[in-house]
């Protein structure tokens, strides 16, 4: 069993991650049916509360909810200015009064899903908060690696790019290390967060060293407009030093796979050929996203009972 909410991979035990992955594998079969829908969450309401637009994640949760026969409501709240933020908890409370069975929260500020979970009766799934965590993305990444490699224990995984501002990196660091993989992070020194080694990873500023003998290479999206000038001199230099192409991939194991949470800045993080062709597994990631999120909804939705009681029993 997993807890009431899913706010981050950091909170999960290895067994809980394994249960989620196993359940997601069970869900994959549904996508191959003619009728891609099961009645499991019939009469349940899934609310997508997205303060920050993210078509991919939102759609993925929406399809997942619908395949489980839940009613999915998209609630796009504006978070355009922090000065309006006093309405954050009001929004959450308004939502709670409508008795949702699970609320999926996305926000550009770290910690918001946690804050909302504190006031909601319904369980909360974090769909990405600032530079904190993006647990469903990391879980689908783990599922993808597991299915490609048959295992996670003992693998070497290199995460490349803007580690400092990446919630995907953090969630994957926790997840893969909990499952027994060796995790390396690589990027320009300005994009490596302070103390990252204390999270149980090794950090590199040389791509060549970071990729040496790894089984999995995960490139992260670079927010070019935000980083250029302040943290990296130029996109061109980033692409030359940390952009992946077939030549650089030769440092990794011959059977290494290439991942990216999307959307890819083609020619920046990944060359065109690595975006589209093997060993890229980017489309498998997207496909696994639906099954994985079905698993999360199945395991979490409707388990609202009473927050007070849950806390009392630990």
């Amino acid at each position, binding site marked *: 069993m997993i807890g009431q909410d899913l706010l981050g991979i950091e909170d999960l035990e290895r067994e809980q991650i394994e249960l989620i992955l196993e359940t997601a594998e*069970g869900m994959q079969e549904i996508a191959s*049916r003619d009728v891609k*829908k099961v*009645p*499991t969450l019939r009469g*349940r309401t899934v609310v997508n509360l997205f303060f920050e637009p993210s078509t991919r994640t939102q759609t993925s949760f929406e399809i997942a909810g619908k395949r489980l026969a839940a009613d999915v409501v998209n609630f796009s709240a504006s978070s355009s200015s922090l000065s309006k933020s006093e309405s954050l908890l009001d929004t959450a409370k308004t939502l709670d009064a409508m008795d949702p069975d699970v609320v999926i929260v996305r926000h550009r500020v770290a910690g918001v899903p946690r804050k909302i979970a504190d006031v909601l009766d319904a369980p909360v799934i974090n769909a990405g908060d600032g530079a904190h965590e993006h647990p469903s993305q990391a879980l689908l990444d783990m599922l993808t690696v597991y299915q490609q490699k048959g295992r996670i224990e003992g693998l070497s995984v290199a995460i490349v790019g803007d580690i400092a501002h990446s919630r995907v990196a953090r969630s994957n660091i926790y997840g893969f290390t909990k499952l027994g993989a060796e995790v390396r992070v690589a990027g320009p020194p300005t994009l490596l967060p302070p103390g990252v080694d204390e999270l149980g990873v090794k950090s590199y500023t040389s791509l060549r060293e970071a990729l040496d003998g790894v089984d999995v290479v995960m490139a992260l999206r670079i927010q070019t407009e935000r980083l250029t000038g302040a943290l990296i001199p130029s996109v061109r230099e980033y692409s030359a030093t940390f952009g992946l192409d077939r030549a650089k991939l030769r440092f990794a194991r011959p059977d290494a796979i290439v991942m990216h949470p999307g959307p890819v800045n083609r020619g920046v993080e990944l060359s065109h050929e690595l975006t589209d062709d093997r060993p890229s597994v980017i489309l498998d990631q997207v496909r696994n996203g639906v099954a994985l999120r079905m698993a999360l909804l*199945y395991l979490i939705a*409707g388990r609202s009972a009473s927050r007070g009681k849950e806390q009392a029993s630990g």
Partner: protein
Amino acid sequence: MDSEPSETHSRVVLDDEKIRRALMRIAHEILESTSEVESLYLVAIPNGGVPLGRRLVENIESLSGIRPGMGILDTTLYRDDLTRRGMRPRLRKTEMPSSVDDRLVILVEDVVNTGRTIRAAMDALMDFGRPRTVRVVALVDRGRRELPIKIDYAGKNIPTQSGETVILRIGEEESEVEARDESLEVVVRTQRGAHDADAVKEAQS
């Protein structure tokens, strides 16, 4: 929650030999009731239905010379009690290698009691197409039905009390899907001091 250990008493009601005989008899009955062996499609409900289904496939093939198709259909996502309980049972494998359209589908289950699992299995089946006929095999019919579900082929009727659980034991494991060619036995467990409702719940699952 009362955690006082309750005394458990187990007795074997069907040993492997009796199960073999029952499944051979059921294979005969299935063949007697249809002239279209080619359209037979055995759909086993995990976990217990799977080894039984495999034996039935063998039996039907040996009797008719035609090997019927077999699928595995997990009913977990179709359960009618998911909305009422906090727990989420683990999903089991579903493998439906061929279409069920216009087939004579035989659902294979180890123990049928309330009929709720069969109800879920029928709903699941319909999501895979439109079978011409659906029939049900149960190795054990406990007979405490809560829904209008009829067993077409029963191995043995074992009327039970509340507080009793009927389990298909496969080899050392209980209802392990992967185990093949292990000896099977059906045991009735009686838990004295167990809360009635708990026992019923367990028996349903």
